[in-house]
Every structure is written in structure tokens, then in C-alpha cells.
């Protein structure tokens, strides 16, 4: 298990009668690209706002880089870069001036970091153009440059692809991967677009109606979504022998209840069933199974997941 960068402990947030977060225990470890998935209004932004000190929890706590005291959290937040909801920019300032504000705020010596951040997001040639005249994609990239100023160790991106065109989405995805790979940056990225997260996240957390339903690694998710034949027979160990000896496959798994998940021969249903029945096994259940990412999440959130 890696070093925990961010953990929320029983985090709860209530607005009068409405519960926005309910006992959320989220864990982000060093090096993760943590995909935080949930419908609009599921509680993603509320959690990120609490982590970044924009809102206070009703109960529970946040631990950031091992710090959970108020003073410790203030210091720890200096190691975090974030874009929450939308990039916040000074519209009458240029990209360089916007970055200068944040350089002074963070007390970063020298102005080299500004050119570096602008180059990283491809905004080095914007000159005297003011932020109010930027396209949505450029604003998003400037927001990212601000978040990256001062080389943070944790980058929090809340719905970062909002308003980006397909090319911009691809660019952002590649940049996130590169930052994670080259700078070993831990990234917490929230989105309601599953396909987008699936292409970059190494770990997932699913939030629905303020409750964190599940956390899993990319591998665990793929495993859960892998297409297979789900077989239940009267003698699982004999069935395993048949699969190995007659069908020549070891790409299966016998679950605790005796159910067999056969990952290979998915498209050769007839051959598998023939082999099992001809060996005298009684087939109780035999069906193809497995989800694509979207249908998996739809199942987890009770059929209500959609973009």
C-alpha cells in the first residue's frame, strides 16, 4: 500500500435538510490518478470544496499529507494545486499576469516558473491578450497552469473537460498522464464522463447521492467488467478438470459459491456446454456475463447513471 496523500474520514456535509455527503471515507495514495465518478449533484464538488478549504464539513475530517489539524491542513494545502468547478481567472489580466498573482500568493521566487507553466499548457504565445478574450479551452488550460504553479504534489481537477472540444479533451488527458508519469504527481480528477476517466485513471471512487459506494483500482474494475461465461454445475472441481483437459484452458476462476467464471472461449458457447454435458455434469446455470464500464456504473448507482 502506498503513502496516503489524501484521506477523508467519515466526512459528512449537510445543508439544512439535505445531506450532500454521508460518512465518506475516500483514500488517495501517492502516484494515483484517482477518478472520482458520480452523477451531477452526487457530492463530488462538495467533497473537493471541503478538501480545498472552500467549505467546512458538518462532521468528519480530512487528512492531507498526514495532517488533520487546522494548522497542519493549512500548511498541507500549500502542496495542492486545484481547479474547482471552473478556472477562476482575473478577466482583465493577461495569462502571465494571472500567473504572477499566484506566484506572489505562493511566494515562489523568480519568474521562470511562469514561463514553464505557460509552456506546459501551450499558452506561451498569448502575449497581451486578456483572459476575458480566451476561449473556454484556453481558460481551462490557464486554470491548469495556475494549479501547477509551484510544483504541487497533489493536483485536484473538478470536471476539467467541461467546455473542452474533443481535441482539448485528448490534450488534457495526455497532459494528466504525462504529469503523473514524469513528475509523479498524484491527481484526483472528478468527472461524470466515464469513458474519459477510464482512459487515464488508475483508481476509481464511485459516489452516489453523497455516499461513496466503492473504491477500486483500474485492474479491479477491468476484472469486474471482463466478459466471461458464468457457469454453475453440480460438481465444480470436475468441471475445472474438463475445462483444462478437454478444452485446454486455464483462463477461468472458481468462486467461493462454486460458480465458474470462464474468460476464454466466450464466443464458443456451444463447444463449452457440449464438453460439460458429455462429461456427465448437470448444468444449473450457463450464461455470458460481464459489463462495459458504463453499464457497470449504471448497476452500481441503481440504474440512474447517465451523462
Amino acid at each position, binding site marked *: 500500500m502506498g503513502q496516503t496523500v489524501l484521506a477523508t474520514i467519515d466526512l459528512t456535509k449537510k445543508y439544512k435538510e439535505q445531506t450532500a455527503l454521508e460518512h465518506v471515507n475516500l483514500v488517495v495514495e501517492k502516484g494515483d490518478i484517482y477518478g472520482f465518478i458520480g452523477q451531477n449533484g452526487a457530492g463530488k464538488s462538495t467533497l473537493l*470544496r471541503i478538501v*480545498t*478549504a*472552500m*467549505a*467546512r464539513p458538518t462532521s468528519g475530517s480530512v487528512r492531507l499529507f498526514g495532517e488533520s489539524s487546522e494548522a497542519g491542513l*493549512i*500548511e*498541507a*494545502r*500549500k*502542496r*495542492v494545486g*486545484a481547479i*474547482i*468547478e*471552473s478556472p*477562476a*481567472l*482575473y*478577466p*482583465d*489580466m493577461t495569462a502571465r*499576469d494571472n500567473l*504572477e*498573482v*499566484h506566484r*506572489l*500568493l*505562493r*511566494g515562489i521566487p523568480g519568474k521562470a516558473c511562469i514561463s514553464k507553466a505557460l509552456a506546459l499548457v501551450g499558452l506561451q504565445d498569448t502575449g497581451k491578450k486578456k483572459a476575458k478574450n480566451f476561449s473556454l479551452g484556453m481558460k481551462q488550460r490557464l486554470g491548469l497552469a*495556475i494549479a501547477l504553479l509551484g510544483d504541487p504534489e497533489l493536483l485536484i481537477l473538478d470536471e476539467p473537460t467541461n467546455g473542452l472540444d474533443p481535441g482539448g479533451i485528448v490534450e488534457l488527458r495526455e497532459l494528466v498522464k504525462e504529469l503523473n508519469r514524469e513528475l509523479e504527481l498524484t491527481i484526483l480528477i472528478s468527472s461524470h464522463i466515464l469513458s474519459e476517466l477510464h482512459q487515464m485513471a488508475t483508481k476509481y471512487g464511485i459516489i452516489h447521492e453523497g455516499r461513496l459506494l466503492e473504491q477500486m483500482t483500474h485492474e479491479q474494475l477491468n476484472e469486474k467488467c471482463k466478459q466471461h461465461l458464468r457457469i454453475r454445475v453440480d460438481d465444480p472441481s470436475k468441471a475445472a478438470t474438463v475445462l483444462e483437459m478437454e478444452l485446454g484452458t486455464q483462463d477461468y476462476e472458481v468462486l467461493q459459491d462454486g460458480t465458474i467464471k470462464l474468460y476464454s472461449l466466450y464466443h464458443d458457447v456451444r463447444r463449452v456446454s457440449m464438453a460439460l454435458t458429455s462429461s456427465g455434469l448437470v448444468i444449473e446455470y450457463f450464461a455470458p456475463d460481464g459489463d462495459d464500464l458504463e453499464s457497470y456504473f449504471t448497476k452500481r448507482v441503481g440504474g440512474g447513471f447517465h451523462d
Partner: protein
Amino acid sequence: MINLLRMELFKLGKNRMFWTLMIIVTVVFALLHVLITIGWWKMDNMFMGAGLEMFSSLALATAPFYFMLFLCTFAGFFVANDFTIGVAKNIVMSGNRRSHIFLAKFIVLALGSMVLAGVCPFIVIIGGKVLFGFGEMTDPSALGYLARAVGLFLIHMLALVALLMLIAVLAEDSGKTIIISIVIALFISVAEVLRPLPGVLEAMYRYSIFHHLIDSFRIRMTYADVIQSLLVGFSSLLILVFFGILVFKRKEIK
């Protein structure tokens, strides 16, 4: 805190409204100063009585509606606008104490306000005298009065800036901040005309920064008056800054 101050000063330098107001204040003062000096505008005021005729245009500073108008516009665009455009969240999430964020903002807002309310008019007056020989000073010994009056005025103005800062933090919108402040300024102007106010209102007004702000320029003040004015100014300043920090600390940033 130093980082926050440097950032706020940089933002002040880039704030177009601040520069616009500075030009307006300077032009209005210069115009008024010229009109009074050439005798086109006859006015009796405390500076005439004190033998400081060349400072007569400063009487404009004692009109609450006038300085509230540009101070609240400045506060609206310098403080509340941070909430409107959302940049307040960047500052809050940067790993600085909210009390420091508030204080840095207040200090720079106060500096900007002093430039607008004090420095610009004095530059016009002194510049007019040095360059064009505008104005007279029949009693230079009255400069002590001027120093006392301006000193008291600045203390009460700081308290007023703290009030504007509190309004801006509560309103989170430059338009609302300006409207609320103008309504307050209107009430003060009306109250000043209607004095003495009925019952407890008169007592409340007498111990308010609004009254003392105007009263700062009174020619004859006893030591007790000065101490009372200082007490009202400093206590109001501390209370308003304290409440401002309290409100800002509890605020959920949108």
C-alpha cells in the same frame, strides 16, 4: 502574510477601477480647487476660518456622500469582485489563514482608499501652490490643526473602509456592495441634515464613525473631544475588522 500583501498590491496596481477613480478624484479636486482659488466658487468652510484658505477644496472630503461614493465603488471592485469572478477560491485554497487573507486585503484596500481620499487631493493642492501659486495660507500656525484633523479623519476613514470590507464580504458582489454603501451614505447625509435626531438615534449617531469623520475637521476640539474621537475610531476599527474576519472565516466560498 507578506506573500498575500505582495499579491494584493500587485492586484491593486492592475485594478482599472482604482486608476479610473484616481483620475476622477484628481480631476474633480483640481477643478474644484481652481474654481475656489479664482473666486468663482465662494464657500465658507472650516479651512477659511482656520486661515488655511488654500486647503478649502478639502471641505469636499467632509461630505459623506462624496467619499462614500468612490470608496464603496473601489471596495466593490477590489474586494467583492474577487467573489463575483471566483478568484477568492484560489486565494482561500492556497494554504493561507483566512484571517491573514482578510487582513492583507483590508490593508491594501485601506492604502488605496488613503491614496484616493488623502494623497490625491493633497498632491493637487500642493502641486497647485508650487506650480501655479494657487491659494493662500494666512495662518501657517494652523497647520497643526490640519495635521490633527487629517489624522482623525484617516482613523475614521480606516474604520469606514473596514465597514465597506465587511459589506463586500457579506454581499459577495460589487453591485450589491455599492448599492448598500450608497444607501448607508444617503442615510448619513439625511441624518446630518435632520440633526438633532430623536432620542437614542442622536446618541448613536454622535458616537458613530460617520459623525466623527465629519467632526474631525472641527476647528476647536478639546483634548477630551480628541480622545473621544480616537476611542470611537479605534474601537470601531477593531470591532469591524474582528467581525469581518469572523464572517470571512465562516464563509463558504462559491
